[in-house]
């Protein structure tokens, strides 16, 4: 089929598709996105920046070490590397979950490196940077000191946690 200008319909469609693709590429370039790892801890959902989480480990045997505070349950052996474990529930004011075995998120930022106990992984998503909102001024409780922003996920507000702020909380 030919359009009155002499162009084939397929050519018009192709042009349109290419224009759209080009526009999308421009949008993709302009809109900075970040990966976040959304997880459950106690009764709530939280998130870390994906760049701060090296891997998620299944439930590990944690070797208890004397003299450490309760929020440091001990050591794990990750393929020959001995790593510390932080029970983040202590800092979030969450109760220990009774169902299921916890997972360990291996967090790395600069010189800080540790496993962090979480209940489960909900999702790993790319979100536009602009969608991260400042922490709610009304945010109360123990978690407030760790929150760097708020994101929306599945109709819920999820607190984005800062690994550096967590590291600063641990002073031995």
């Amino acid at each position, binding site marked *: 089929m030919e359009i009155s200008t002499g162009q084939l319909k397929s050519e018009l469609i192709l042009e349109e598709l290419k224009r759209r693709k080009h526009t999308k590429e421009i949008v993709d370039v302009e809109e900075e996105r970040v990966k976040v790892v959304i997880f459950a801890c106690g009764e709530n959902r939280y998130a870390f920046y994906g760049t701060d989480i090296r891997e998620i480990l299944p439930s590990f045997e944690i070797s208890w070490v004397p*003299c450490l505070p309760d929020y440091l349950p001990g050591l794990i052996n990750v393929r020959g590397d001995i790593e510390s474990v932080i029970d983040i529930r202590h800092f979030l004011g969450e109760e220990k979950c009774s169902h299921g075995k916890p997972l360990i998120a291996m967090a790395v930022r600069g010189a800080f490196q*540790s496993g962090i106990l979480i209940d489960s992984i909900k999702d790993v998503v790319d979100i536009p940077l602009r969608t991260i909102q400042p922490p709610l001024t009304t945010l109360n409780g123990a978690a407030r000191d760790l929150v760097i922003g708020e994101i929306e996920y599945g109709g819920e507000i999820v607190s984005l946690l800062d690994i550096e702020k967590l590291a600063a909380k641990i002073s031995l």
Partner: protein
Amino acid sequence: MNDPCGIYLNLFLFSVGGVHFAVDAEQALGMTPYAGETEEDLFWFHEELGFGNRAVTYRTPTIVTIRMPESRPYRVIIDSLEDISEFSRHDIRLFPDLLEPRTLRNGMWGILVKDDRMILLVDFKRLLRGRTAVAALGEVAKHENM
């Protein structure tokens, strides 16, 4: 075993409250079974290491006498003495950076992995030195507040 390079350590392996420990055999002057002694210079291992509220039951308590260069020997009750084994220094792992300041102050300076279990290396001299330093700081603070 012949050890010309000094890379091997003879360690006493024992466990207290289900946690595995090892101490350099060179630190120990001797060992005797614990028979209910209550002398003031006799210490329980779990109290020395900071087990906190964790319940600890000793099954076969043994008194280890630790050689101290400038003071009387230090006597501590350990449990379930398992073995004396030779380990290469190269097999000793460091505590993670996050924990090391605290573990060093409490005499724990390294980790060995044997048969999938972690063995915490204890240096009683380091433990006592740390305690002496803390006590000295406390004294200084007390005088400054007077």
